[in-house]
Each structure stands twice: as structure tokens, then as C-alpha cells.
């Protein structure tokens, strides 16, 4: 099956299990072609219902949005303010 690669940066407590270098530079993830945000989260072992925020190019993506190859994906946790 054809795959695509995206670089993912994990913020908040999502990146706790990563090394400092992986947290700083992100990790490369290979997933089947035309992945959605939901597919990416499943691939990363993150529950899509867990308030995870997926940001690409300054915009929040929805669970069924496609993740384009080669983009930098930033994952955060939703917070109500501070």
C-alpha cells in the first residue's frame, strides 16, 4: 500500500514519552496514502476524542480533514484559557 510521510510535533503532555530531540524536531510518521487527521491520531495511539488539537499551517484541522504529505503537524491539547 502506498504511504506518505509527515513530521509531527507533540506538545503538552502528549510528548512526555519522547526524547528531548524528538520533542524539539518532531517525529516522522509514515501512514497509508490520503490519511485523515483521525487516521494520524490512531497511528500515534492518541484517542481522537481526547481533546487533541491538530494544527497545520496555522489552522486547526477537523478529524476528517486530510493530512497532506510533507506538512508539519503540531499536536496540542485543548485548553480553555489562561
Amino acid at each position, binding site marked *: 500500500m502506498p504511504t506518505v510521510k509527515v513530521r509531527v510535533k507533540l*506538545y*503538552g*503532555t502528549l*510528548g512526555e514519552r519522547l526524547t*528531548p530531540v524528538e*520533542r*524539539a524536531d518532531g517525529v516522522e510518521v509514515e501512514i497509508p496514502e490520503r490519511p485523515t487527521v483521525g487516521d494520524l491520531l490512531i497511528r500515534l495511539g492518541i484517542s481522537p476524542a*481526547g*481533546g487533541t*488539537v491538530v*494544527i497545520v499551517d*496555522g*489552522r*486547526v*484541522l*477537523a478529524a476528517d480533514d486530510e493530512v497532506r504529505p510533507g506538512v508539519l503537524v*503540531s499536536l*496540542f*491539547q*485543548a*485548553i*480553555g*484559557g*489562561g
Partner: protein
Amino acid sequence: MRFIRVNMNDRSIRVEEGGEAYAGLGGRGLTSILVNAEVPAKCDPLGPENKLVFAPGFLTGTSLPNTGRLSVGAKSPLTGGIKESNAGGTIATALARLGITAIIVEGQAPAGELSLLRIDQDGQASLVPAAEYRGLRTYTLVERMLEAYGEKTSVFCIGPAGEHKLAVASIQSSDVDGRPCRAAGRGGLGAVMGAKGLKALVVDQRGKSTDGIADPGAFKEAVKAVVALVQQDHMSAEVMPKLGTAALVGAVNSLGAFPSYNARKGVLEGWEKISGEAMAELIQARGGKTTHMGCNQCAIHCSNEFVDAEGKYVTSSLEYETIWAMGGMTGVADLDTIARLDHLCDDIGVDTMSTGVAVAVAMDAGYRSFGDGPAILEMVEEIGRGTAFGRILGSGPAAVGKHFNHDRVPVVKGQSIAAYDPRGMLGHGITYATSPMGADHTAGNLVGAYLEHKLDPLSPEGQIPTSRFLQITMAAFDCMGQCFMASVAMLSPEGAEAFRKVIEAKSGKTLEPDDFPQGMGIRILKAERDFNRRAGFTRQDDRLPRFFYEEPLPPHNKVFSFTDEEIDGTFDF
């Protein structure tokens, strides 16, 4: 309901029953409705007609966690309108457990007279001459207070900025470790306290009574349900204890809405160095505390203790808004500098937000370069010393703009915006424009709706109703003494229902679904808007500065696009 009225003219103190008009109120509801009823709207905020009101929340002092907030109300010298600012720490619980519903400070001490308001273990209030504490910074003052009155003492005090009656002066609250690092920062209420001739409230923590609970059994059950909801909320349960509010630095920069270099850009260069993640890593490596309890009755522990390279305490708690104002707006991507500035602001008693923005306006006008940390430390020191320039800076961003004849001043009603640019998060512009408090970060904060993908921050759709809903809801929760973090976990209909049961069990009165938060929130906003109208505010004051409409904000290159008519439709009551 027990009110303590302190008249600074003749040093008289009177205890009275609160009366039916204030039944069921605490916190912001009590301060705003009382200020609207008793303070002449056109009075000089620093004159004898203004009143300074301190009120724990309706639920403060009970077994409901996260209810340790004290509201302070008055006419603001910064905005010229009504103001409520609230602080955590230990003071609210101390007052509530002495059965005190409100303290109302009236009149004005003769020039040069300075006092402490001491409240002892029996709840008896007295004014104590405080000439020997004149000019003291807050950390030294609190040490002296704890030596004089014992460790079981809460202190709520002003620093030199408050004594100088500067419009960015805060009132600092001692935390559970006895450090004055929590603040009622916004609106210059420290200046009102200084103008009254009051240096500090010094309150015994050993009180055991509260206003009483009508149905203790039902209260216990209702509290359990609210606690469960807060524990289920991953923000309160997971993110806040580990990263604190600073977790927002990454998300808001990634969305291009972090006002940087005096709101010239939406992303700070090097924001990764001042993110919540970077801060947690640094604090851990140095042996500080990433999880810390700052306020009494807290179950969330969003606070931290920032330490220097030698592991020595610098400040607590380094928060998102301070990191933004002192780092983003000034172009300083260095946590050590920001932490030192945070400590300095707490010590001299100024709001980190208004102060950081005032510095940023001066930098934007060419007074110093963005990114020059040592220059900022020197500028803020000048506020503490009360130099001529320090007094201009301490009068807030609008005063600095006037001084330099510079028109890029990000304020509404004289109060600076918060860490969300209204061109990158449109709904925040609605809240900034319409909140009776002036631009504000807790009055109606939409960032959660953006991050949860309920609203597109760059599309006008849904922004006004969401701002309206949040402003009403938060006004109601601000009556209860509950902190912002826990209130955010209560925004759903289930949260509101669970919370109503707590209020019902305490008051013994049945609430309809419309009564709380909607009914209570609207009642408070109406009182606040009524005061502002009588103080001379018009619709023209519900506007953002021109540059937000004209200058596109990179990276999205959008401007704030709502019309005046749309803004004026925000409150339909």
C-alpha cells in the same frame, strides 16, 4: 451575611448585615452590584467617594475545591469604569472562614497616613498604623507581617506602585507558602487601596465559621458531582498540573494569534524557548516545582515555582499572560528574564499584563529596542522607584502612548488586551470591545472554542454569540469564588446543572435553569454596564484601536472586521 465597613476618614469600623439586595451574591456579583449602588459613577477613582470592596465568593470557605478567589471591586483609575479583579492565594478562604461576606473601605485617610486593616481570629477588625511599612515591597512586607502576626496569616497588600497611586498597581495576595505572588492585577485597584491609605489586609487564617449551609447532606453530594466533572476535564486534570497556563504559548503561536512586538506579528520568533513545555523542562532540570499549589482549597495545582540556575526561588507562578506580556509583546524569548520581571512586578505591586504592554508601547515608539531584557528590568524598576518615567510607565499603555505621541496602543477602555490578538482570534476582539472591564482575558475567553474546533478563529461566524455566552457565564462563576480553570470545566449544560445543585444546597433556595449562570450573569453585566453608562461611557468606548482594523497581522494577514453595529449587538439586554 456580614459586611465590615471601614471609614478611612475617621478610622471608624462598623459591622452590618448584608441585606436582601445582596442575598445569594458573593465575589464579582457582590462587588459590582454594591459599587453600582453606592459609588457615584462620576467620582474621582482616587478620591474619597470611591469605595474599595473585597468579597470572597459565595462558595468560598466551603468544602467545594477551587473556590479560593477574592474579588475586589471599585471604580478603576485605569479604565474610568467599574472594575472587578480577583486573586487566588489564601486571603479569600481566610475571610470566608471568619464569616465575612464583604469588606467595604470608604473615605480617604488624611494625607500621609498609612494603615493596615487587621482582622483577628475572632473576626474583629481594627486599623493599625503602618507608617513603618511605608514604601516596602511586597515580599519584605509579607515577611514582616508573618513575623508580627504569625504564620497563620493571609496578607493582601500593595507595594510602592500602589502607594504612588499608579494605574497599573495591583493588590498582591500571599499564597499557601506565604509569598505575595498571586495578584488582583487588572484595573489599578492597588492605586485605589493606596489612595485610601491602606497598605494591607492582614487576616487570621484560623476562622472556622462560614455563612452556613442550608442542606449539608445535599451539599456534600453536589460537591462530589462538581469535583468529578473537574477531574474528568483533561485541562484541569492533566495539562494544568504539569504545564500550567503556559501550555497555551505553543498553541496560540501555532495559530498565529500571539500578539508579539507590540502586536506587530502573530508569532514570536523563538517562542519555543518560552513555551510551557520548555519551562517545565527547565524547572525540572533545576529542581524547581512544575506542579505547585498556590491557592487554598485548590485541587488543580496549575501553579509552579520557577528557580534560577542555582535552584534558588525566583517567582511563582509563571503564567501564560505574563509570559506573553513580558516576553511576546517585548520580543524577549528568555524565561529567566521573564521570571525576574514577574518577580519584580509582584514585588513592587503592578499588573504584569498592563506593565508589559506599557513597556511594549514604549519600545514600539523607539524608546528601547524589542528584545532588550536588561532595559525592561530597568524600566520596570523605575516604576518601583517612582521616577518621572516610572510614573508614566506605571500609568499604563495609553499614558505611554500619549507621552511618546504613538498611536499603536492595544487597549480598550484604557486596559490592555490579553495574549490573543483580535485579528487572529476574532471573538477575543468582541470580548475586548464589549466587556465592561475593558480588554480582558477571563471575561469571555474563546480560545477553548477555537482549539476544540467549535469555531474558526478567522471567520466572523459564531464569534458574537460565543463571546456573549462566555461573558455571561463567567460573570456568574466569578460570583462563586471559583477559579477560571475549574469554571471552564463547568461550561457545559451538565456542568451548569451540577453547579446549580451546589448553590441550591448552600442557599436553600431552588434555582431554575435560567437563574444560573444566565440570569445571574446578565444581572451582573447589567449593573456593570449601568455604572459605566453613568460614568460617561458610550458605544464609542466599545471599540478596538484603529490599527486592529487597518494593519493586517502576519502570518494570516487578517484585520479585525466586525462593524460597529455588529459589536453593539453583542449584548441584547
